[in-house]
Every structure is written in structure tokens, then in C-alpha cells.
């Protein structure tokens, strides 16, 4: 399509930029693809190893160590939360493979639709069930463990650590919720703007 503004020197200036030819050979592309998949697998594996490692250690403490009931309950709650997190990450990866940003979707969707999908995903991360459920899953176990520390070690550095951790959890959680809520509102505004854009008549 020819430039409909032949006199527009900015367009000429833009198109006249000197560019170094760039092309990747099929081998390079395949190699890059392999690298990318490897990185993604590695990243997922690290998360799973952390979750499963913690589950294994805490299960060992619960079953094999002479720990008090309160601590065991706390650790059990943390184990359940970790299992829940690992499951969520697995589901998230799978849903993205099925519906989200597959390579062909990049060419099939217009920018508005594609951008909206991305924004909705980001908004849901900050506001949706994913964020709240992660926080709520982890909180009870950690709080029970902290309370156990406080009760078990009064006037002892470990007890003070328990106080500090409880205070941080109680302060940081509302702050994190507020920050994420604010962020999600920002994404929501952008989504609304895109929706309004789509309703503009031809």
C-alpha cells in the first residue's frame, strides 16, 4: 500500500531509516525454540521443586518428629497451601496453552482483542480468584506456626521472631491486597477503554 501522504516528510524519514538486515535461519529458529522451551520447563520445575520440597520436609516433621499438635496443624495447613499453589500453577500453564497466547492466536486476533485478553489476564492475576485464593491459602498455616512460636518460646528470640512474623503478615497482607486492588483497577480502566473503542460505529 503506497503512502497516501507522499509529501509527509516524517513518513519518508521514518521509512528511510537505515536498517541492518536481520533474519534467523531455520536452524537458529529451532534452536531458539528449544532454548525457550527449556527455560520455561526449568522455571516451572523450580516452582514445583520448591513446593514439593516443602511438602516433603513438613510431612517428615509431622510424621517423624515429636512436634506439638499446634505446630503440626500449622505445618499441615502450609502443606495443603503448597499443594494448592502447585496445582494452580499447573492449571494456569495448561489454560494458557489451550486458550491464551498460542503462536497462531497472535496472527488471528486483531490488536484490540489480543491486548484485551492480555489485560484481562493481568487484571485477574491482581484481583481475581487467583490472587485471593493464594493469599488465603498460605495465611492460616503461617499464622498458626507463628502463634506456636510465640506460645512455645515466650521472652525468647524465637518468640520475638514469632511476634515479628505475625505482625509482618498482618501488616503486609492488607497492604498487598490494597496494592493489587489498585493495580487491578488500573487494568480494568484500560479494559473499559478498549470495550468503549470496540463500540465506536464504523
Amino acid at each position, binding site marked *: 500500500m503506497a503512502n497516501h501522504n507522499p509529501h509527509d516528510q516524517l513518513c519518508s524519514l521514518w521509512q528511510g531509516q537505515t536498517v541492518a538486515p536481520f533474519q534467523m535461519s531455520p536452524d537458529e529458529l529451532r534452536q531458539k525454540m528449544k532454548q525457550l522451551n527449556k527455560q520455561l520447563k526449568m522455571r516451572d520445575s523450580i516452582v514445583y521443586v520448591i513446593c514439593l520440597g516443602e511438602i516433603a520436609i513438613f510431612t517428615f516433621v509431622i510424621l517423624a518428629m515429636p512436634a506439638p499438635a499446634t505446630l503440626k496443624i500449622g505445618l499441615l495447613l502450609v502443606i495443603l497451601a503448597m499443594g494448592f499453589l502447585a496445582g494452580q500453577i499447573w492449571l494456569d500453564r495448561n489454560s494458557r496453552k489451550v486458550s491464551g497466547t498460542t503462536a497462531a492466536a497472535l496472527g488471528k486476533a486483531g*490488536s484490540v482483542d489480543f491486548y484485551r485478553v*492480555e489485560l484481562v489476564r493481568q487484571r485477574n492475576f491482581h484481583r481475581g480468584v487467583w490472587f485471593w485464593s493464594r493469599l488465603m491459602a498460605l495465611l492460616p498455616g503461617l499464622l498458626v506456626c507463628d502463634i506456636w512460636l510465640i506460645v512455645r518460646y515466650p521472652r525468647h528470640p524465637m518468640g520475638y521472631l514469632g511476634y515479628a512474623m505475625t505482625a509482618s503478615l498482618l501488616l503486609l497482607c492488607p497492604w498487598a491486597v490494597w496494592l493489587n486492588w489498585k493495580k487491578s483497577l488500573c487494568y480494568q480502566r484500560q479494559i473499559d477503554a478498549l470495550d468503549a473503542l470496540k463500540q465506536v460505529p464504523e
Partner: protein
Amino acid sequence: MSDILTVNDYLIQERIRTMLVPDKSSDDLYQDAVLAHGPALDRLARAYEANSEDRRDLLQEIHLALWRSFAGFDARCSLRTWVYRVAHNTAASHILRSRRAKSNTLVSLEEIEEQGGIAAKDDANRSLDRSLLLERLFALIQRLNPLDRQVILLYLEGMDAAFIAEVTGISSGYVATKIHRVKAILAERFRNGGSHGQP
């Protein structure tokens, strides 16, 4: 004549579509795309990333996305539309992921137009050389939100409203309004630059 397609018409159209893409592999389509649109992809990456290393990473990401996307290319749109969609969507996704972009507030063309007068006064009596003009153009583009950035980039590539509408998914009427704004902003901000800007 009725506008409703008969089964036969549909089959003919499908046949034409498949003839247009005669069993080309992703590699072949990728090579065709790079040959025809490689420089535009390079300019697109420049508009998104000022740093040369980040720009190269983004360019590689776009090329990889393009090559991968061709496995699902069904010729329902032209190769050029496909290439621009993949490139712009990859770049928009790149912006959303980028921490630097998250910390900057991206604005719309309308907001830039509102702020226009102040910047224009600075340049009113100065002529700008090519590199400074380009630098300012990049600075302007990099402040824009992804969608408006796409509109201005496609405009600078010389695309018309219908094509921009096809790539972005906005109605062509609204694209025309956006282009009008782009022209006004460019005219105001680069008032004297053009006379020294011949490539």
C-alpha cells in the same frame, strides 16, 4: 444478486485460499515475510525499545513468534496483515511484561494532543536535523499506550486506515479519527523539522 454465499461459492473461496498458500512450510512463509517486511519489523522494534540489546531481544522474539505462528496461518487474511498482527501483538505483550514500561505511565494520543502546545513552542523557531527528529519521534512513540503506538507506527509505515483497522481491530472510522490526531500532533511537534528531514 443475493449476498448469501452458496455452499459452492464457499468451496470455491476455500479452494482459492488454499491455492494462494500452496503447501508452503513455516520456513518458506517466514522467509517470504522477512523478505517483504523485515525492515518494517526492525523499525517496529526500534520504536518499542531504545536500548540496542533490548531491541535485538524484541526483534528475535518477533521473528520467533512469526515463524511459530505460520503453523496456524490459514490465509484468511493476507500475509502482510498476519505479519503486522503478530509483530504488533508480540510487541504489545512485550510492553505489558516489561518492568520499565510498567513503571512509566503510558498515555493516549488524546492526552498528548492536550499537552501539545507546550512542546510545540520550544521547537517553533528551530529547525531540526534528521537524527534529532527521529530521536524526538521515538520519544513521542515510546510514551504512547500500545494501541495508539500501533496506529502511529502503521501510519508512519504508510498504511491506510482500512489496513490499520484490519490489523488493530478498531473500526476504520475511528482509525481515521486517530490518524487525524496523529497528523495534528506530528504537525505541531515537528513543525519545522520536515524541511531538513528528507532522507
